């Protein structure tokens, strides 16, 4: 009897342990551990391609059927690699094709690589190993996308900001292209269609692709950043021993040496300013300035691996670069720009960063259709024109929520992809 009692206890213990371990395993799988997807590049120079790769690859299967790949898609790297290998072999003259041609390309097979921000041709040359120099491109036009299209064999076009097409090469041998497009089609990636541009009740300004099926996306909870930025404060000063430390009532900490100033916010933000030292004036091109900005971020807090160049503004001698991070392949939006660098005469004169540490999947939702999001905004805001529409993640109340971002003639709006309600990104944390 005693032995039976002991065996029973052992059995009970084993069952309880098994149940406990199963619970631990399945809770990790369903909601996910806290991930640090915002990994940082800290100890090496940043390669431009790491943050200048296209945000989207639009694949046309012919006859107005398309799919859109983001960087998380397994075929993204293959298509990008194919483009680079193709453009690396081009060395031909350039002709300007015009804007009307793009419509005929939509009927045929093709791939369009769309960048987050338009890039000067001189920078794109480096990115794509292009060896094409011609008077047609001497003004260094800004390029929004690169198009591979079945035209005279397979041709490559650079698409400018005004929609003009620059044909830079063609080939009759494009079996690999056909194979890639066929492979993507057979993978049954979600189909997309173009929003109608008929201008009946609402005008659509540009080509906007929308999914025909509602996409499934995770909702994340945000893990707050630990405030360990004081550890890197010394990197901002040539002689940190002379820098004074001031603690403010709101918990912010300021370091200053009389010319440079560094403010570390209590909730994880950082802002640095310094005047331009005129005696250090140097001439440099856009690529060098951008490289300088990226490497500054890497050496002062780390360059997020998921970061990309969202926009830039040239103002006399200074360029302000705005970077954003991606989450699940989609842009991450906050109430204000959260990774900004201003470079003047190749010196960083302003730097702001406000990053989070990681995130955890809380649930998975089926996003509302983009047409429903447009209808909400049109009905509520009486808009007349849509400039752009895309999916993103927005940080709100401790969560990263999937939202439809709609840019209109009345401003930019964010529609919760869970229920098509409008979201306002209220200032929080360091930007209050």
């Amino acid at each position, binding site marked *: 009897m005693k032995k039976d009692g002991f065996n029973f206890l052992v059995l009970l213990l084993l069952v309880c342990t098994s149940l406990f371990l199963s619970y631990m395993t399945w809770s990790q799988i369903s909601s996910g551990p806290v991930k640090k997807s915002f990994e940082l590049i800290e100890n090496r120079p940043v390669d431009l391609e790491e943050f200048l790769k296209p945000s989207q690859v639009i694949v046309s299967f012919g006859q107005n059927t398309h799919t859109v790949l983001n960087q998380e898609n397994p075929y993204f790297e293959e298509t990008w690699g194919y483009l680079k290998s193709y453009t690396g072999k081009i060395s031909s003259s350039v002709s300007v094709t015009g804007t009307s041609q793009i419509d005929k390309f939509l009927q045929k097979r093709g791939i369009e690589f769309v960048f987050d921000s338009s890039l000067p041709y001189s920078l794109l040359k480096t990115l794509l190993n292009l060896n094409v120099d011609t008077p047609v491109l001497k003004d260094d036009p800004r390029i929004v996308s690169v198009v591979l299209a079945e035209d005279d064999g397979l041709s490559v076009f650079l698409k400018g900001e005004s929609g003009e097409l620059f044909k830079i090469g063609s080939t009759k041998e494009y079996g690999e292209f056909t194979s890639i497009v066929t492979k993507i089609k057979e993978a049954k990636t979600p189909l997309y269609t*173009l929003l109608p541009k008929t201008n009946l009740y609402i005008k659509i300004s540009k080509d906007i692709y*929308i999914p025909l099926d509602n996409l499934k996306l995770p909702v994340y909870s945000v893990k707050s950043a630990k405030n360990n930025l004081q550890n890197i404060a010394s990197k901002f000063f040539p002689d940190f021993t002379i820098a004074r430390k001031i603690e403010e009532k709101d918990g912010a900490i300021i370091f200053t040496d009389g010319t440079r100033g560094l403010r570390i916010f209590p909730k994880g933000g950082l802002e640095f300013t310094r005047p331009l030292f005129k005696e250090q004036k140097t001439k440099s091109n856009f690529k060098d300035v951008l490289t300088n900005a990226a490497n500054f971020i890497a050496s002062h807090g780390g360059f997020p691996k998921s970061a990309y160049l969202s926009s830039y503004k040239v103002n006399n001698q200074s360029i302000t670069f705005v970077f954003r991070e991606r989450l699940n392949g989609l842009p991450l939006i906050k109430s204000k720009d959260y990774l900004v660098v201003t470079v003047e005469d190749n010196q960083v004169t302003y730097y702001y960063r406000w990053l989070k540490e990681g995130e955890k999947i809380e649930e998975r939702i089926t996003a509302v259709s983009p047409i429903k999001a447009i209808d909400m905004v049109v009905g509520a805001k009486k808009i007349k024109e849509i400039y752009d529409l895309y999916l993103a993640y927005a940080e709100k109340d401790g969560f990263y929520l999937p939202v439809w971002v709609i840019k209109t003639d009345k401003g930019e709006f964010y529609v919760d992809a869970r229920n098509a309600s409008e979201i306002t990104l209220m200032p929080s944390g360091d930007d209050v």
Partner: protein
Amino acid sequence: MKRIGIALILVLLMLFLFTTIASAEENFIIFKPEKDSTSEKVLPISGQTEPDSVIVVFLNGEKKDEITVGASGIFATQLELTEGVNKVSFKVTFPSGTTKTFTKKILLINEDQMSASILQLIKAILILK
């Protein structure tokens, strides 16, 4: 004279309103597909019409989708075609209550069969030659 003038103005006003309403109801545009034939089995459809209209989509007489059009007037859907001629119909009920049906015929071409037919045609021409 005065009465004639008022009557004329009223008639013109009614004509104007009628034209406006009629032209609003006429607004049903299919943006995609543009062509009448395709070799793609899945057919994306998109268009624009009067907001708050209801569109019932039929394929070869069978109801496939029902769309309530929102404030933007935009709609989109997709259909899986069968080989040969497909009759795609859109029964649109406008907010005024008027119902109209718009029909489009789309030919689904089997690419393999098309290639085989062309090959046979070439062989026939060569034989005749």
